Every structure is written in C-alpha cells, then in structure tokens.
C-alpha cells in the first residue's frame, strides 16, 4: 500500500470528571488512505468521536487531555497544531460534519454566510466572492434554488437540507479528509440514503478521504472501504469491509453482526443483543475489555490485555483467540456464524 494520508498512532485521551479520570481513548492507531472511506463503528461511549475530535483539536481542555499519540498528516504531526507550513488544518485540509445538523449551525446567521465564513477565514476571499462560492457549493450539495436558500436561516431548512449545507461548508476549502461524525443518525431513513449518496458522489469527484463514524452497520456496508471496530477506547478489529462482514475475527464484531435487525417479514426472529455493558473506563480492566461479555472468553482474557494480532491481508484483531499459541486459532478466517445476507440494509 502507498503511504497513508493520515496516520494515527497510539492516541490516548483522558477526561477529568468528578468521578475521577476517564480513559476515553486507550491507544488507538490506524491509517487513512487518500480517497478511501474509513469507517469507525462501535457502541456509544467507545471513543469513536473522541478519537476524531482529538485529530481536529476539538477536545475541550480542561477537562480533556491528549496524553500520548501522534496524528501524521502527510508526514507532519498535527495533534495540537493549527497549521502545517502556514496552511490551516481545521476547516481547510480537514473538514468535519456533525451528528445533529439542527443544532450544529448558528441560528442567527444565514446559511450562505456560514459557508462563506470558511472561505473568508482560510482563502482570504472577500465577502461577496465567498458568498457566490457558497451558492455554488450549495448547488454542488444538490440544494435546489441555492441562490435563494443561501439567504435563508437554519430554522427555514429541514434536517436533511441542513446536513447538505453542513457538507457544503465542510468541503468549501476542498479538504483532503472529510470527517463525518454520525452524519445520518439524526435523519430519517430516506434522507439518510440521499446524504450517503451525496457523500459518495463528492468523494468520487474530489478524491477526498472520508472518516465515517457510525454505529449503523448498514451504513458501513454501503460506504466503507476500511472498517475499524472500536470497543472501550480501543480498536478491537480492523480490516476491509468484506473481511469485517464475512470473516469477522473478534467476538465483539460477531456480536454486533448478530445484533443487527433483519428484514425477515415473518417477524419470527428475535434480536440477539450482546449481554452486559461496556467496562468502566474509570478503572479499565487489566485484561480484555470485552471479556465479561464474551461468549468465547478464556482464562487468559481476564488477566492479560490481548495484543493486536495480524491476520491475513491487513486484517487484525485484538483478541487472544487468534494468538498463535491458541490451539483453536488454526483457522483465523473461519466462516462467521451469522448469514452473509444480514449485512444488507
């Protein structure tokens, strides 16, 4: 593989709270390739958002603290930095869109000006030129009557339209990376599909990389090239989208897939949830975080943290099951227990 566009290594983030120090992210490393979509999946509180927010420098400090790690963008560490060689990072080389478009835009500023602001800040455009460009960007984001819409305020837009406007804002400076933090969670299903299509189209047109955070495996199957599965502040499995869905290696990934609802019209199939709850990140367990909930847990899992074990073709899992010393680890790419059809939306 070529050199990655963005390479994150050993990222650790802590938060001071009244209850003590929460270790939200505990040593996350991954690469993002140019033009590809990297999806980060996992349940709420597993550290997905904190990971990308630290890359964007959006961790509120205090109480947040990045205790270690590097994020190399084309070979330069951008953690804690604002610029590379005089070029701004936030909003310029990396754009970001958020979960709730209804509250993520300034209610007292019109849409066009909010998009134009990015261009004024990073490109030094004049007001009217930036506004003209904002209208073009809205058109690119497939908002009808963009000229009129640019002069309207967020309360005059629907949720889906606002997310399009957010996308227009994030791509204004033609960033190399677009971070989408649960971009469709707050939207209804038909709008979700439109937004995902738009993201896909823009990615093809501009060749930008997308880091997509979601807890919707349907979205992952549709969008992702690479998938990272996060649990309790760590990446427990990573691989291509096919590997993750058809050759899941980590029991947590298997659990997530089994928990997906199906389209079975008879309704005879019950959802199979993952029992238990994630570990307390105030006192992370000494062994594997998933151990108490894992149906395949072994003795070693409770006491010793599992290493990242490389499997075939770039896939890797943080699980003792795949350790060479485990006699059962002979076939790492064993067929999953769920049906392959479960990944369809």
């Amino acid at each position, binding site marked *: 593989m070529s050199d990655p566009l963005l390479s994150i290594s050993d990222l650790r983030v802590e938060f001071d709270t009244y209850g003590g120090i929460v270790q939200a992210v505990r040593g996350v490393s991954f690469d993002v390739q140019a033009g590809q979509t990297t999806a980060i999946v996992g349940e709420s509180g597993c550290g997905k958002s904190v990971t990308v927010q630290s890359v964007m420098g959006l961790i509120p400090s205090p109480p947040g603290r990045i205790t270690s790690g590097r994020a190399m963008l084309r070979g330069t560490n951008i953690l804690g930095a604002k610029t590379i060689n005089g070029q701004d*990072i936030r909003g310029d080389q990396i754009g970001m869109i958020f979960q709730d478009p209804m*509250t993520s835009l300034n209610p007292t500023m019109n849409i066009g000006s909010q998009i134009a*602001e990015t261009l004024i800040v990073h490109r030094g455009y004049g007001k009217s030129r930036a506004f003209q460009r904002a209208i073009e960007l809205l058109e690119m984001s497939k908002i009808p009557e963009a000229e009129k819409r640019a002069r309207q305020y967020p309360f005059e837009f629907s949720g889906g339209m606002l997310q399009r406007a957010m996308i227009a804002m994030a791509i204004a400076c033609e960033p190399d990376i677009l971070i989408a933090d649960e971009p469709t969670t707050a939207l209804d299903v038909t709008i979700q599909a439109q937004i995902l299509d738009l993201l896909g189209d823009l990615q093809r047109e501009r060749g930008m990389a997308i880091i997509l955070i979601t807890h919707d495996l349907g979205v992952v199957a549709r969008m992702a090239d690479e998938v990272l599965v996060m649990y309790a502040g760590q990446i427990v499995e990573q691989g291509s989208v096919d590997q993750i869905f058809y050759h899941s290696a980590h029991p947590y990934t298997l659990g997530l897939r089994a928990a997906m609802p199906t389209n079975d019209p008879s309704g005879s199939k019950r959802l199979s949830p993952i029992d238990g709850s994630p570990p307390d990140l105030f006192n992370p367990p000494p062994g594997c975080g998933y151990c108490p909930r894992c149906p395949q847990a072994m003795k070693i899992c409770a006491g010793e943290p599992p290493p990242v074990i490389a499997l075939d073709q770039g896939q890797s899992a943080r699980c003792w099951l795949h350790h060479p010393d485990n006699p059962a680890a002979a076939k790492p790419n064993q067929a999953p227990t769920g049906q392959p059809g479960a990944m369809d939306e």
Partner: protein
Amino acid sequence: MLQYTVKRLILGIITVWFIATATFFGMHAVPGDPLTTDKALSPTIRKNLEEKYGLDKPLVTQYGIYLANLARGDFGISFTQENREVNDIIAEHFPVSATLGILAVIFAAVGGVLWGALTALYRNRLPDTIIMFLVILGISVPSFVVAALGQLSLVNLNQITGTSILPVGGWGTVWHMIVPSLVLGLSTMAYLTRLMRSSMLEIVNADFVRTAKAKGVPATQIFSRHQLRNAILPVITVLGPQIAIITTGGFVVEIIFAIPGLGRYFVQAVQQLDYTVIMGTTVFYGAFLVFMVILVDLIYGLIDPRVRLE
C-alpha cells in the same frame, strides 16, 4: 414586518388607554380631592370651584371629558401649581428624566453584556469570582442606598483632591449625568450580568460553536459572531421590562441628586392629589414604556431571524 409593527402599535394604544382608565378610577377612589387643603373652604367656594373644574359632574362624565381631551393631546392644567399646563411640565422635565434613563439603560446593557461574557469566559477563575461578588452586591443593595453612598464618596473625593472633579448634585452638563446614571443603572447591570453569564455558558459549548471551531474560525470571531450574538438574545428579552424598572427607579435617584426630572412632579402630584398632573405623568410614562417595549421587540427581530416573520 410593517404589519407586525402596526399591530403592535395598535395593541400599545389599547394598553395606554387601559392604563389611563385604571389610573383615572383608582385616583378618584382615593379619599379627598385636589380641593382638600389645610384651610377649610366654605361650602359655597368649594361648590363654585367644583363647578369650575367639572368635579361636580358624575364620574363617568368626567372620564368622558378627560378621554376627549387626552385624544387631542391635552393633559389639562395643574390643580396645585399656578397657571401651569401639564403639557408644559412634561415638555420641560421629561427630557431630563429621559436622558438620565436612557444613559442608565445603555450603561446597564453594555456593562451587563460585557461583564457577563467576561465572567463566562473566565468561569470559576478569579475575575469571575470578583465580578459575581460585586453583582450580588449590586442586585441586593437598593438604589437609594447606592445613590447616597455614591454621593458621599463624591464629596470625599472632591474634598481629598481639593477640586470638584464631578458635581455632587444638580443638572446641566455631561459631568452631572455620569454618577446618577451609573447609580440608576447599577442593579439592572448586575441582573443582566448574571443573565448574560448563564446564557453565555450555555452557548460556549453549543454545537454550532463546535462547528465554527471545526471550520477553523479564530477564537475572537467565534466570540463576536457566534457566541455573543446568540447569548445576547435573553438579555434583549428582559431589556423591555428592565427599562420600566430603570425609569420608575429614576424618581428616587432624581430626588437624591436634585435633578429636575419628571419624577419629583409625579410624587408631589400624588401627595397633593393633583388629578391632572397624576393623569398626565402616568399616561405619558405608560405610553413611553409601551413604546420602549415595542422597540425592544423590533430590535429582537433584527437580531434573531426566527422571530422576524411572526
């Protein structure tokens, strides 16, 4: 927007009519009348005077006459002051009260917004603690105490320096206006500071502020364009009623600083049951306040697009 303004103005006129009616009947319900003085009038003189001023007519008829005069903008002639029309009293003394009140409102609004934003940005640090302590003082100490203390410190200051830095009382130059308007606006400023602080704290972590950060907007611009403008909305909402509090609070401050404003006439008129002056000042003040509240609402519409269309 125009339709809304017209609608608000019509509603405002109805409000003023209601104030006039309530004051009129309330005033007449008070025992005695302007002719009740220390010296007893003989029944004949009293009857003649009542006839001259129309006080012998049924109350409803008097009300009708009053409203008709009011509609023509005629507040009548004072009962107790020689040969003075209420219109003249207002024209002469209201500008003084208005200047004092407006200065106090500006001082309170600007100060409240700035201090509030500052305390929010320095939350739980030393500037926040100091300012919030002063704010509690400002809210809890009544204006006549602050006025007296202000005057006392002015006297001391002038004595120590040996020159008259700021005048202790009276009216005339800009220097006369500073201390009274600061005193008058102080408690409102303290209240607005608290309000601004809490609304700013809400905004500091708002989603759209995070968006602005993700766009790479510099902190000063985030503060001025995104945080301040949204945090200021609740402050503007309460500004209308606060203007009422400041202008009525002005009566006390005017008396302490010997300022020839309308407040003195208002208080005197109530004591002497000077019907026309009571009515004139009340209705005029009422109309002024209603107008200010409408103005504040229109300004609110300019800042927050969400209320513009309704």
